[in-house]
Protein backbone atom coordinates (compact mmCIF):
# COMPACT_ATOMS: atom_id res chain seq x y z
CA UNK A 1 0.00 0.00 0.00
CA UNK A 2 2.96 2.33 -0.25
CA UNK A 3 1.83 3.58 -3.65
CA UNK A 4 -1.04 5.38 -2.01
CA UNK A 5 1.40 7.73 -0.30
CA UNK A 6 3.23 8.42 -3.55
CA UNK A 7 2.90 11.23 -6.02
CA UNK A 8 0.95 9.19 -8.57
CA UNK A 9 -2.30 9.43 -6.62
CA UNK A 10 -2.43 13.25 -6.56
CA UNK A 11 -1.37 13.35 -10.22
CA UNK A 12 -4.19 10.93 -10.98
CA UNK A 13 -6.65 13.12 -9.10
CA UNK A 14 -5.47 16.17 -11.05
CA UNK A 15 -5.95 14.25 -14.29
CA UNK A 16 -9.43 12.94 -13.48
CA UNK A 17 -10.76 16.24 -12.13
CA UNK A 18 -9.26 18.18 -15.01
CA UNK A 19 -10.61 15.76 -17.60
CA UNK A 20 -14.15 15.74 -16.21
CA UNK A 21 -14.39 19.52 -15.90
CA UNK A 22 -12.96 20.00 -19.40
CA UNK A 23 -15.14 17.39 -21.07
CA UNK A 24 -18.27 18.66 -19.32
CA UNK A 25 -17.84 21.92 -21.19
CA UNK A 26 -18.35 20.20 -24.52
CA UNK A 27 -20.95 17.54 -23.92
CA UNK A 28 -24.61 17.50 -23.03
CA UNK A 29 -24.63 14.50 -20.69
CA UNK A 30 -26.30 15.56 -17.43
CA UNK A 31 -24.39 13.02 -15.35
CA UNK A 32 -20.99 14.34 -16.44
CA UNK A 33 -22.05 17.96 -16.16
CA UNK A 34 -23.42 17.27 -12.67
CA UNK A 35 -20.18 15.65 -11.54
CA UNK A 36 -18.21 18.51 -13.02
CA UNK A 37 -20.28 21.07 -11.15
CA UNK A 38 -19.92 19.09 -7.95
CA UNK A 39 -16.13 18.98 -8.30
CA UNK A 40 -16.05 22.71 -8.86
CA UNK A 41 -18.12 23.28 -5.73
CA UNK A 42 -15.73 21.03 -3.81
CA UNK A 43 -12.80 23.09 -5.01
CA UNK A 44 -14.50 26.23 -3.74
CA UNK A 45 -15.12 24.64 -0.33
CA UNK A 46 -11.55 23.33 -0.09
CA UNK A 47 -10.17 26.74 -1.03
CA UNK A 48 -12.37 28.17 1.73
CA UNK A 49 -10.70 25.86 4.22
CA UNK A 50 -7.30 26.88 2.89
CA UNK A 51 -7.68 30.31 4.47
CA UNK A 52 -6.82 28.53 7.71
CA UNK A 53 -3.39 27.74 6.27
CA UNK A 54 -3.00 31.46 5.63
CA UNK A 55 -4.03 32.24 9.18
CA UNK A 56 -1.50 29.74 10.55
CA UNK A 57 1.24 31.14 8.28
CA UNK A 58 0.64 34.73 9.38
CA UNK A 59 -0.17 34.17 13.03
CA UNK A 60 2.94 32.02 13.50
CA UNK A 61 5.08 34.71 11.87
CA UNK A 62 3.67 37.53 13.98
CA UNK A 63 3.51 35.72 17.30
CA UNK A 64 7.12 34.61 16.75
CA UNK A 65 8.13 38.18 16.14
CA UNK A 66 6.41 39.29 19.34
CA UNK A 67 7.97 36.50 21.36
CA UNK A 68 11.44 37.29 20.05
CA UNK A 69 10.79 41.05 20.20
CA UNK A 70 12.02 41.27 16.62
CA UNK A 71 13.30 44.79 16.21
CA UNK A 72 11.27 47.02 13.92
CA UNK A 73 8.60 44.38 13.63
CA UNK A 74 7.05 43.32 16.91
CA UNK A 75 4.94 46.45 17.63
CA UNK A 76 3.38 46.04 14.21
CA UNK A 77 2.78 42.39 14.91
CA UNK A 78 0.78 43.45 17.95
CA UNK A 79 -1.26 45.81 15.76
CA UNK A 80 -1.78 42.97 13.34
CA UNK A 81 -2.97 40.45 15.90
CA UNK A 82 -5.31 42.87 17.68
CA UNK A 83 -7.05 44.02 14.52
CA UNK A 84 -7.17 40.53 13.05
CA UNK A 85 -8.75 39.02 16.16
CA UNK A 86 -11.20 41.90 16.52
CA UNK A 87 -12.31 41.72 12.90
CA UNK A 88 -12.69 37.94 12.89
CA UNK A 89 -14.41 37.52 16.25
CA UNK A 90 -16.82 40.40 15.68
CA UNK A 91 -17.63 38.94 12.27
CA UNK A 92 -18.51 35.60 13.80
CA UNK A 93 -20.86 37.25 16.32
CA UNK A 94 -23.27 38.05 13.53
CA UNK A 95 -22.29 35.86 10.62
CA UNK A 96 -25.65 36.04 8.86
CA UNK A 97 -26.01 39.79 8.41
CA UNK A 98 -22.50 40.97 9.40
CA UNK A 99 -23.95 43.89 11.34
CA UNK A 100 -21.88 43.69 14.50
CA UNK A 101 -20.86 47.30 15.20
CA UNK A 102 -17.19 46.46 15.80
CA UNK A 103 -17.04 44.57 12.52
CA UNK A 104 -18.74 47.35 10.61
CA UNK A 105 -16.51 49.99 12.19
CA UNK A 106 -13.32 48.14 11.38
CA UNK A 107 -14.60 47.46 7.93
CA UNK A 108 -15.54 51.00 7.05
CA UNK A 109 -12.74 52.76 8.93
CA UNK A 110 -9.73 50.51 8.44
CA UNK A 111 -10.36 48.29 5.46
CA UNK A 112 -12.25 50.62 3.12
CA UNK A 113 -10.18 53.82 3.40
CA UNK A 114 -6.94 51.87 3.15
CA UNK A 115 -8.20 50.01 0.11
CA UNK A 116 -9.12 53.25 -1.62
CA UNK A 117 -5.84 54.91 -0.72
CA UNK A 118 -3.87 51.89 -1.85
CA UNK A 119 -5.63 51.85 -5.18
CA UNK A 120 -5.12 55.56 -5.64
CA UNK A 121 -1.38 55.35 -5.06
CA UNK A 122 -1.28 54.01 -8.61
CA UNK A 123 -1.88 57.59 -9.70
CA UNK A 124 1.61 58.44 -8.44
CA UNK A 125 3.21 55.36 -9.88
CA UNK A 126 1.73 55.85 -13.32
CA UNK A 127 3.27 59.31 -13.54
CA UNK A 128 6.78 58.23 -12.68
CA UNK A 129 6.48 55.10 -14.82
CA UNK A 130 5.24 57.16 -17.73
CA UNK A 131 8.04 59.68 -17.91
CA UNK A 132 10.75 57.17 -17.11
CA UNK A 133 9.65 54.36 -19.37
CA UNK A 134 8.75 56.53 -22.31
CA UNK A 135 12.31 57.73 -22.69
CA UNK A 136 13.35 56.96 -26.24
CA UNK A 137 16.42 54.78 -26.02
CA UNK A 138 16.04 52.99 -29.34
CA UNK A 139 13.62 52.63 -32.19
CA UNK A 140 11.35 50.19 -30.35
CA UNK A 141 10.84 52.54 -27.41
CA UNK A 142 10.00 55.36 -29.83
CA UNK A 143 6.91 53.36 -30.75
CA UNK A 144 5.90 53.19 -27.09
CA UNK A 145 6.23 56.96 -26.78
CA UNK A 146 4.28 57.82 -29.91
CA UNK A 147 1.38 55.46 -29.32
CA UNK A 148 1.24 56.17 -25.59
CA UNK A 149 1.18 59.94 -26.05
CA UNK A 150 -1.44 59.82 -28.77
CA UNK A 151 -3.76 57.69 -26.68
CA UNK A 152 -3.30 59.94 -23.63
CA UNK A 153 -4.17 62.97 -25.73
CA UNK A 154 -7.24 61.11 -26.93
CA UNK A 155 -8.45 60.44 -23.41
CA UNK A 156 -7.70 63.72 -21.72
CA UNK A 157 -10.16 66.48 -22.53
CA UNK A 158 -7.19 68.74 -23.18
CA UNK A 159 -5.98 66.72 -26.18
CA UNK A 160 -8.83 67.70 -28.43
CA UNK A 161 -8.47 71.28 -27.27
CA UNK A 162 -4.88 71.38 -28.54
CA UNK A 163 -5.54 69.73 -31.87
CA UNK A 164 -8.70 67.99 -33.08
CA UNK A 165 -6.61 65.40 -34.86
CA UNK A 166 -5.27 63.81 -31.66
CA UNK A 167 -8.44 61.87 -30.80
CA UNK A 168 -8.74 60.65 -34.39
CA UNK A 169 -5.17 59.39 -34.52
CA UNK A 170 -5.35 57.92 -31.04
CA UNK A 171 -8.59 56.14 -31.85
CA UNK A 172 -7.03 54.69 -35.00
CA UNK A 173 -4.07 53.35 -33.04
CA UNK A 174 -6.42 51.73 -30.54
CA UNK A 175 -8.72 50.33 -33.20
CA UNK A 176 -6.26 49.03 -35.75
CA UNK A 177 -2.68 48.12 -34.78
CA UNK A 178 -3.42 47.70 -31.08
CA UNK A 179 -6.39 45.44 -31.68
CA UNK A 180 -4.34 43.35 -34.07
CA UNK A 181 -1.39 43.15 -31.69
CA UNK A 182 -3.68 42.18 -28.87
CA UNK A 183 -5.18 39.41 -31.00
CA UNK A 184 -1.79 37.90 -31.70
CA UNK A 185 -0.81 37.94 -28.03
CA UNK A 186 -4.17 36.36 -27.13
CA UNK A 187 -3.85 33.59 -29.69
CA UNK A 188 -0.38 32.69 -28.48
CA UNK A 189 -1.57 32.69 -24.89
CA UNK A 190 -4.52 30.47 -25.72
CA UNK A 191 -2.29 27.81 -27.21
CA UNK A 192 0.17 28.12 -24.35
CA UNK A 193 -2.52 27.70 -21.70
CA UNK A 194 -3.87 24.52 -23.25
CA UNK A 195 -0.41 23.00 -23.58
CA UNK A 196 0.50 23.90 -20.00
CA UNK A 197 -2.75 22.33 -18.85
CA UNK A 198 -1.79 19.22 -20.81
CA UNK A 199 1.65 19.04 -19.18
CA UNK A 200 0.17 19.34 -15.72
CA UNK A 201 -2.80 17.02 -16.25
CA UNK A 202 -0.47 14.34 -17.64
CA UNK A 203 1.83 14.76 -14.65
CA UNK A 204 4.97 15.95 -16.41
CA UNK A 205 5.16 18.89 -14.07
CA UNK A 206 4.95 17.73 -10.47
CA UNK A 207 7.21 19.95 -8.39
CA UNK A 208 4.15 21.56 -6.85
CA UNK A 209 3.17 18.37 -5.05
CA UNK A 210 6.71 17.70 -3.95
CA UNK A 211 7.43 15.28 -6.81
Amino acid at each position, binding site marked *: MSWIRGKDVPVGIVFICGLIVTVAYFINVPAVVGVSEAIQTWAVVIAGFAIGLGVVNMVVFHSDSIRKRASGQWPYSVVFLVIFVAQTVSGFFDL*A*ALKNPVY*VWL*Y*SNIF*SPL*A*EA*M*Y*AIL*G*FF*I*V*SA*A*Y*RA*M*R*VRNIETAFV*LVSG*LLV*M*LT*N*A*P*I*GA*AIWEGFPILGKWI*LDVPTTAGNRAIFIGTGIGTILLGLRILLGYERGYIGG
Partner: protein
Amino acid sequence: MGTESKKPRSVWERLEHMDPRISYWLLIFVIVVPFLRPLGLPISISKETQSFYNTLDALRPGSVVLFDISSGPAAYGEIGPGSIAMMEYVTVVYPGRHEGGRLRIAIVSGGEAEGAIMYEAYARPRLEKAGFQYGADYAWFGFIAGGETMVARLADSIPSLLRNDFFGTTIDKLPVMKGVSNYKDVSVVIVWDSVDATAWYVRHWGAKGVRVGTVCVAVEIPAYITFYRSGEVFGIIGSSRGGAELELLVGKPGVGVATTDTLSTSHLLVIILIIVVHIGLLARKYLPSTGKR
Protein backbone atom coordinates in the same frame (compact mmCIF):
# COMPACT_ATOMS: atom_id res chain seq x y z
CA MET B 1 17.07 54.71 -11.86
CA GLY B 2 16.73 54.07 -8.17
CA THR B 3 16.50 56.78 -5.60
CA GLU B 4 19.59 55.41 -3.95
CA SER B 5 21.69 57.94 -5.77
CA LYS B 6 24.98 57.15 -7.42
CA LYS B 7 27.81 59.53 -8.25
CA PRO B 8 27.36 63.28 -8.76
CA ARG B 9 25.58 63.92 -12.01
CA SER B 10 25.16 66.70 -14.49
CA VAL B 11 22.04 68.82 -14.65
CA TRP B 12 20.94 67.07 -17.81
CA GLU B 13 21.40 63.69 -16.34
CA ARG B 14 19.40 64.74 -13.32
CA LEU B 15 16.63 65.90 -15.60
CA GLU B 16 16.68 62.60 -17.42
CA HIS B 17 16.67 60.51 -14.25
CA MET B 18 14.39 62.66 -12.17
CA ASP B 19 13.62 61.52 -8.65
CA PRO B 20 10.08 60.15 -8.83
CA ARG B 21 9.19 61.97 -5.62
CA ILE B 22 9.51 65.32 -7.36
CA SER B 23 6.94 64.25 -9.90
CA TYR B 24 4.62 62.99 -7.14
CA TRP B 25 4.61 66.34 -5.36
CA LEU B 26 4.05 68.09 -8.68
CA LEU B 27 1.11 65.79 -9.31
CA ILE B 28 -0.45 66.71 -5.97
CA PHE B 29 0.04 70.36 -6.80
CA VAL B 30 -1.64 70.20 -10.20
CA ILE B 31 -4.58 68.33 -8.67
CA VAL B 32 -5.02 70.59 -5.65
CA VAL B 33 -5.04 73.82 -7.64
CA PRO B 34 -8.05 73.11 -9.87
CA PHE B 35 -9.97 71.83 -6.84
CA LEU B 36 -9.40 75.17 -5.08
CA ARG B 37 -9.79 77.32 -8.18
CA PRO B 38 -11.87 75.43 -10.75
CA LEU B 39 -10.64 76.22 -14.23
CA GLY B 40 -14.19 75.91 -15.47
CA LEU B 41 -13.29 74.19 -18.71
CA PRO B 42 -16.69 73.72 -20.37
CA ILE B 43 -18.22 70.27 -20.03
CA SER B 44 -20.50 69.25 -22.86
CA ILE B 45 -23.23 66.72 -22.09
CA SER B 46 -22.73 63.63 -24.22
CA LYS B 47 -25.59 61.79 -25.91
CA GLU B 48 -25.04 58.74 -23.73
CA THR B 49 -25.46 60.69 -20.50
CA GLN B 50 -28.46 62.66 -21.73
CA SER B 51 -30.14 59.44 -22.79
CA PHE B 52 -29.44 57.87 -19.38
CA TYR B 53 -31.25 60.76 -17.72
CA ASN B 54 -34.12 60.91 -20.20
CA THR B 55 -34.83 57.19 -20.07
CA LEU B 56 -35.06 57.15 -16.29
CA ASP B 57 -37.15 60.29 -16.34
CA ALA B 58 -39.65 58.69 -18.72
CA LEU B 59 -40.31 55.74 -16.40
CA ARG B 60 -43.72 55.71 -14.72
CA PRO B 61 -43.72 55.87 -10.89
CA GLY B 62 -43.85 52.35 -9.50
CA SER B 63 -41.71 50.91 -12.28
CA VAL B 64 -39.34 48.20 -11.11
CA VAL B 65 -35.65 48.93 -11.54
CA LEU B 66 -33.15 46.12 -11.13
CA PHE B 67 -30.06 47.71 -9.75
CA ASP B 68 -26.84 45.71 -9.81
CA ILE B 69 -23.85 46.97 -7.84
CA SER B 70 -20.95 45.22 -9.52
CA SER B 71 -18.13 47.40 -8.37
CA GLY B 72 -16.06 47.66 -5.24
CA PRO B 73 -14.75 50.59 -3.27
CA ALA B 74 -11.47 50.44 -5.14
CA ALA B 75 -13.15 51.73 -8.29
CA TYR B 76 -14.95 54.41 -6.33
CA GLY B 77 -12.83 57.21 -7.72
CA GLU B 78 -14.24 56.50 -11.14
CA ILE B 79 -17.72 55.24 -10.35
CA GLY B 80 -18.34 57.52 -7.38
CA PRO B 81 -19.38 60.78 -9.05
CA GLY B 82 -21.80 59.02 -11.38
CA SER B 83 -23.24 56.84 -8.64
CA ILE B 84 -23.80 59.74 -6.24
CA ALA B 85 -25.47 61.74 -8.99
CA MET B 86 -27.62 58.75 -9.90
CA MET B 87 -28.73 58.20 -6.30
CA GLU B 88 -29.48 61.92 -6.05
CA TYR B 89 -31.63 61.59 -9.13
CA VAL B 90 -33.49 58.51 -7.94
CA THR B 91 -34.10 59.71 -4.39
CA VAL B 92 -34.70 63.45 -4.85
CA VAL B 93 -35.05 64.58 -8.45
CA TYR B 94 -37.29 61.78 -9.72
CA PRO B 95 -39.90 62.05 -6.94
CA GLY B 96 -39.78 65.84 -7.33
CA ARG B 97 -40.58 65.61 -11.02
CA HIS B 98 -43.26 62.93 -10.66
CA GLU B 99 -45.41 64.34 -7.84
CA GLY B 100 -43.68 62.31 -5.17
CA GLY B 101 -43.94 59.02 -7.06
CA ARG B 102 -41.06 56.64 -6.55
CA LEU B 103 -39.34 53.90 -8.49
CA ARG B 104 -39.28 50.41 -6.98
CA ILE B 105 -35.70 49.31 -6.62
CA ALA B 106 -34.38 45.77 -6.26
CA ILE B 107 -30.68 45.88 -5.46
CA VAL B 108 -28.34 42.93 -6.03
CA SER B 109 -24.64 42.51 -6.47
CA GLY B 110 -23.91 40.11 -9.30
CA GLY B 111 -20.34 40.73 -10.31
CA GLU B 112 -18.41 41.80 -7.28
CA ALA B 113 -18.66 40.56 -3.70
CA GLU B 114 -17.54 43.96 -2.54
CA GLY B 115 -20.69 45.46 -4.01
CA ALA B 116 -21.96 45.10 -0.45
CA ILE B 117 -19.56 47.81 0.65
CA MET B 118 -20.75 50.13 -2.07
CA TYR B 119 -24.34 49.45 -1.06
CA GLU B 120 -23.66 50.21 2.59
CA ALA B 121 -21.62 53.28 1.84
CA TYR B 122 -23.36 54.97 -1.04
CA ALA B 123 -26.79 53.50 -1.73
CA ARG B 124 -28.45 52.74 1.60
CA PRO B 125 -27.62 56.02 3.42
CA ARG B 126 -29.04 58.09 0.56
CA LEU B 127 -32.18 55.99 0.26
CA GLU B 128 -32.79 56.19 4.00
CA LYS B 129 -32.13 59.91 4.08
CA ALA B 130 -34.75 60.48 1.40
CA GLY B 131 -37.29 58.50 3.41
CA PHE B 132 -37.40 55.40 1.21
CA GLN B 133 -38.90 52.47 3.13
CA TYR B 134 -36.94 49.24 3.20
CA GLY B 135 -39.11 46.46 1.84
CA ALA B 136 -41.69 48.80 0.38
CA ASP B 137 -39.51 50.99 -1.86
CA TYR B 138 -36.32 49.00 -2.11
CA ALA B 139 -34.76 45.69 -1.12
CA TRP B 140 -31.18 44.48 -0.88
CA PHE B 141 -30.27 40.92 -1.85
CA GLY B 142 -26.51 40.99 -1.33
CA PHE B 143 -23.92 39.31 -3.49
CA ILE B 144 -25.18 36.44 -5.59
CA ALA B 145 -22.49 34.16 -6.93
CA GLY B 146 -22.44 32.80 -10.46
CA GLY B 147 -21.50 35.77 -12.61
CA GLU B 148 -22.89 35.69 -16.10
CA THR B 149 -24.70 32.38 -15.51
CA MET B 150 -26.52 33.92 -12.57
CA VAL B 151 -27.52 36.95 -14.66
CA ALA B 152 -28.88 34.69 -17.38
CA ARG B 153 -30.92 32.62 -14.93
CA LEU B 154 -32.18 35.74 -13.19
CA ALA B 155 -33.83 36.91 -16.40
CA ASP B 156 -36.02 33.84 -16.48
CA SER B 157 -36.87 33.50 -12.84
CA ILE B 158 -36.21 36.18 -10.32
CA PRO B 159 -37.85 34.54 -7.24
CA SER B 160 -35.88 31.31 -7.63
CA LEU B 161 -32.55 33.16 -7.32
CA LEU B 162 -33.59 35.97 -5.02
CA ARG B 163 -35.34 33.67 -2.59
CA ASN B 164 -34.42 35.72 0.49
CA ASP B 165 -33.11 39.21 0.87
CA PHE B 166 -29.76 39.84 2.54
CA PHE B 167 -31.34 39.66 6.00
CA GLY B 168 -33.18 36.42 5.41
CA THR B 169 -36.66 37.80 4.75
CA THR B 170 -38.38 35.75 2.06
CA ILE B 171 -39.21 37.55 -1.14
CA ASP B 172 -43.00 37.19 -0.75
CA LYS B 173 -42.81 39.29 2.41
CA LEU B 174 -41.22 42.19 0.52
CA PRO B 175 -43.92 44.43 -1.03
CA VAL B 176 -41.39 45.96 -3.40
CA MET B 177 -40.96 42.60 -5.13
CA LYS B 178 -44.69 41.93 -5.44
CA GLY B 179 -45.58 40.58 -8.87
CA VAL B 180 -41.97 40.52 -10.02
CA SER B 181 -41.31 37.11 -11.49
CA ASN B 182 -39.07 37.55 -14.51
CA TYR B 183 -37.50 40.04 -16.92
CA LYS B 184 -40.95 41.13 -18.20
CA ASP B 185 -41.72 42.76 -14.87
CA VAL B 186 -38.54 44.83 -14.79
CA SER B 187 -38.51 48.18 -16.59
CA VAL B 188 -34.79 48.80 -16.78
CA VAL B 189 -31.56 47.47 -15.37
CA ILE B 190 -28.91 49.80 -13.98
CA VAL B 191 -25.41 48.52 -13.30
CA TRP B 192 -22.58 50.13 -11.37
CA ASP B 193 -19.90 48.30 -13.17
CA SER B 194 -16.18 47.74 -12.89
CA VAL B 195 -16.17 44.04 -13.85
CA ASP B 196 -17.90 43.85 -17.24
CA ALA B 197 -21.27 42.99 -15.71
CA THR B 198 -23.10 45.34 -18.08
CA ALA B 199 -22.16 43.06 -20.95
CA TRP B 200 -23.79 40.13 -19.13
CA TYR B 201 -27.05 42.02 -18.79
CA VAL B 202 -26.84 43.14 -22.41
CA ARG B 203 -26.44 39.56 -23.57
CA HIS B 204 -29.19 38.04 -21.44
CA TRP B 205 -31.62 40.86 -20.66
CA GLY B 206 -30.95 43.27 -23.52
CA ALA B 207 -31.58 40.49 -26.00
CA LYS B 208 -35.03 40.09 -24.41
CA GLY B 209 -35.82 43.78 -24.65
CA VAL B 210 -34.92 45.04 -21.18
CA ARG B 211 -32.61 47.97 -21.66
CA VAL B 212 -29.54 48.46 -19.53
CA GLY B 213 -27.98 51.61 -18.17
CA THR B 214 -24.47 51.61 -16.82
CA VAL B 215 -22.26 53.65 -14.56
CA CYS B 216 -18.89 52.26 -15.58
CA VAL B 217 -15.13 52.69 -15.47
CA ALA B 218 -13.17 54.24 -18.32
CA VAL B 219 -11.78 51.04 -19.79
CA GLU B 220 -15.28 49.67 -20.39
CA ILE B 221 -16.61 52.67 -22.31
CA PRO B 222 -15.55 51.64 -25.85
CA ALA B 223 -17.26 48.27 -25.57
CA TYR B 224 -20.46 49.75 -24.15
CA ILE B 225 -20.66 52.46 -26.80
CA THR B 226 -21.12 49.64 -29.30
CA PHE B 227 -24.09 48.36 -27.26
CA TYR B 228 -25.42 51.90 -26.97
CA ARG B 229 -25.43 52.26 -30.75
CA SER B 230 -27.21 48.93 -31.18
CA GLY B 231 -29.79 49.95 -28.58
CA GLU B 232 -29.39 47.45 -25.74
CA VAL B 233 -27.75 50.07 -23.54
CA PHE B 234 -29.84 53.17 -22.93
CA GLY B 235 -27.17 55.28 -21.34
CA ILE B 236 -23.58 55.32 -20.18
CA ILE B 237 -22.18 57.30 -17.28
CA GLY B 238 -18.53 56.75 -18.11
CA SER B 239 -15.96 57.30 -15.37
CA SER B 240 -15.76 60.63 -13.55
CA ARG B 241 -16.26 62.51 -16.82
CA GLY B 242 -19.71 60.98 -17.31
CA GLY B 243 -20.37 61.53 -13.61
CA ALA B 244 -19.66 65.22 -14.11
CA GLU B 245 -22.19 65.39 -16.93
CA LEU B 246 -24.89 63.67 -14.88
CA GLU B 247 -24.16 65.98 -11.96
CA LEU B 248 -24.86 68.93 -14.23
CA LEU B 249 -28.10 67.36 -15.47
CA VAL B 250 -29.26 66.59 -11.94
CA GLY B 251 -28.36 70.14 -10.95
CA LYS B 252 -25.81 69.29 -8.29
CA PRO B 253 -22.32 69.87 -9.62
CA GLY B 254 -19.92 68.00 -7.34
CA VAL B 255 -16.92 65.71 -7.36
CA GLY B 256 -17.23 64.81 -11.01
CA VAL B 257 -17.22 68.36 -12.28
CA ALA B 258 -14.29 69.22 -10.06
CA THR B 259 -12.36 66.10 -11.09
CA THR B 260 -12.67 66.72 -14.80
CA ASP B 261 -10.43 69.78 -14.55
CA THR B 262 -7.81 67.82 -12.66
CA LEU B 263 -7.77 65.22 -15.41
CA SER B 264 -6.69 67.84 -17.89
CA THR B 265 -4.00 69.30 -15.64
CA SER B 266 -2.59 65.95 -14.55
CA HIS B 267 -2.39 64.63 -18.10
CA LEU B 268 -0.66 67.83 -19.06
CA LEU B 269 1.85 67.25 -16.26
CA VAL B 270 2.62 63.76 -17.53
CA ILE B 271 3.20 65.08 -21.02
CA ILE B 272 5.39 67.92 -19.79
CA LEU B 273 7.46 65.52 -17.69
CA ILE B 274 7.98 63.32 -20.72
CA ILE B 275 9.19 66.34 -22.68
CA VAL B 276 11.51 67.43 -19.85
CA VAL B 277 13.04 63.98 -19.64
CA HIS B 278 13.72 64.07 -23.37
CA ILE B 279 15.33 67.48 -23.12
CA GLY B 280 17.72 65.96 -20.60
CA LEU B 281 18.31 62.95 -22.78
CA LEU B 282 18.97 64.93 -25.96
CA ALA B 283 21.16 67.48 -24.19
CA ARG B 284 23.29 64.77 -22.67
CA LYS B 285 23.66 63.15 -26.05
CA TYR B 286 24.40 66.19 -28.18
CA LEU B 287 25.86 68.88 -25.92
CA PRO B 288 29.63 68.28 -26.06
CA SER B 289 30.46 69.52 -22.57
CA THR B 290 28.37 67.04 -20.61
CA GLY B 291 29.80 63.89 -22.13
CA LYS B 292 28.21 60.50 -22.30
CA ARG B 293 29.12 59.39 -18.81
